[in-house]
């Protein structure tokens, strides 16, 4: 057993999760990373070239079995950093989505994240230290026609994080919520979602994933409550409390409705 520290990152094959894992390796952490696709091995090869010890697991966290298998892989090791990042979007109108796809989205974004937060929270409280970063979204402030359940799951995560940040305010464990705006990652173009034809997927105005991940990582290390990277996103987050949800919903419809 080395004296290096362990960082655990879910959803780390691509996108924000991969970048968070990269920042942790550059910081000298050993890694346990997972994703539900073979690309996790390719990600691990790249990360190992940066000098880290990287353990991978290909696992479907949208199932309770997958979540339990992943927790078994964590074992009883101390965990210094946990990035609860795994999540998916779905796209299209609520009634046109298949129930099984909706159920899997909720299982992954809500149930799995909550379960691992609960287990990691207890582990870190017992250790007397630890840092947690949850990937929420500014989508949690805005009603999301044509991706209704996704935005609602992010509202859940944003709310949960702010509550736990308060509950743990005298605790040695920190919890930070990263609330990105639209970021240039594969989330819009996965074969199993229906966002590929939406204006937001085609927009070339999305945020740079390295900038988004860096903002989240730094906020976690500083123990901040939450971070909204990017000026436009900060404006949306600020106005979401002032502008009626009906207006925000209409804006979201324009971005997310398939053409």
């Amino acid at each position, binding site marked *: 057993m080395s004296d290096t520290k362990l960082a655990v990152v879910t959803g780390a094959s691509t996108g924000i999760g991969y970048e968070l894992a990269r920042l942790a390796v550059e910081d000298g952490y050993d890694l346990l990373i997972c994703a539900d696709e073979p690309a996790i091995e390719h990600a691990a090869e790249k990360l190992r070239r940066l000098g880290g010890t990287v353990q991978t697991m290909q696992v479907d966290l949208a199932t309770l079995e997958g979540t339990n298998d992943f927790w078994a892989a964590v074992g009883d090791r101390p965990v210094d950093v946990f990035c609860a990042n795994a999540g998916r979007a779905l796209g299209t*109108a*609520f*009634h046109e*989505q298949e*129930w099984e796809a*909706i*159920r899997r989205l*909720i299982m992954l974004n*809500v*149930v799995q994240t*909550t*379960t691992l*937060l*609960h*287990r990691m*929270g*207890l582990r870190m*409280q017992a250790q007397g230290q630890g840092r947690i970063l949850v990937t929420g979204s500014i989508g*949690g402030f*805005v*009603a*999301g*026609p*044509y*991706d*209704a*359940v996704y*935005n*609602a*799951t992010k*509202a*859940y*995560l*944003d*709310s*949960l*994080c*702010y*509550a*736990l*940040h*308060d*509950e*743990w*305010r*005298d*605790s040695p464990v920190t919890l930070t919520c990263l609330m990105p705006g639209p970021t240039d990652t594969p989330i819009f173009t996965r074969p199993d979602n229906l966002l590929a034809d939406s204006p937001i997927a085609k927009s070339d105005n999305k945020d740079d994933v390295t900038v988004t991940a860096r903002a989240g990582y730094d906020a976690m290390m500083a123990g901040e*409550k*939450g971070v909204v990277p990017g000026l436009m996103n900060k404006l949306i987050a600020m106005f*979401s*409390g*002032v502008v009626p*949800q*009906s207006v*925000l*919903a*209409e804006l*979201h*419809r324009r971005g997310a409705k398939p053409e």
Partner: protein
Amino acid sequence: MTGGKLAVITGASSGIGLELARCAVADGCEVIICADDAAIAKAEAELRTQGAAVTAVQADLGTPEGVAQLFDVIGARRVDYMMANAGRGKGGAFLDQSEADVNEVLRVNIIGTTDVLHRSVRLMRAQGSGRILITGSIAGWMPGSYHAVYNATKAYVDLLNWAIRNEVNDTDITVTCLMPGPTDTLFFDRAEMLDTPVGRDPDKDDPAMVAREGYAAMLDGRSGVTTGFMNKVQSLVSGLIPDSVLAAMHRKMAKPDGNSDHV
């Protein structure tokens, strides 16, 4: 009864759900009521004394089987009003709760509610019209220190309501979100929150008043209604006050009196 409207109310054995069923019966509706406890039979008997046609379904809507059971009873009938009201709370610090307790709240409030809404929107699109009332909560606008998972589920429900409402705005379906504040129901007892300031508060809202306002808002097709004066104030300021301050306010209301193992 022929020509009458059919209303379906979930979580109708007591509290706001039972009061919504009373509103529907007083309005001349036939009702299908659902809850996971045996008290649903008592509610059925009481509503029948008002002369209404009542069908009771005892089912746990936190399970796929429970939702299927309710919709099997509905069958191919036209549903005029769907009131998705079933919900659960669980007080105390997140890390003091068992994983099973946390999952119970997620199953009922998020998975069950979404399943019922998904089936209802499809059913009403097929029949061409209908009215949906969702019981969200003012808690959705306020991170819930010492009631964290519950408040987060209501943030989910409140935001889902607005998105679905927007998606159906070119149809004759309406979606209304009832966002009560603390209401005098069995909720706080079941959530084991009687030892908290909010649980003890004698000035909680009357569930009959809350249900009447929600029912009227649904008939008008309004987007949302917050009931009670203090709740209107709270939901108004929730966009202006940082979430961290709201969470600290919630701590004062919901933190149990005893010492918690997890600060």
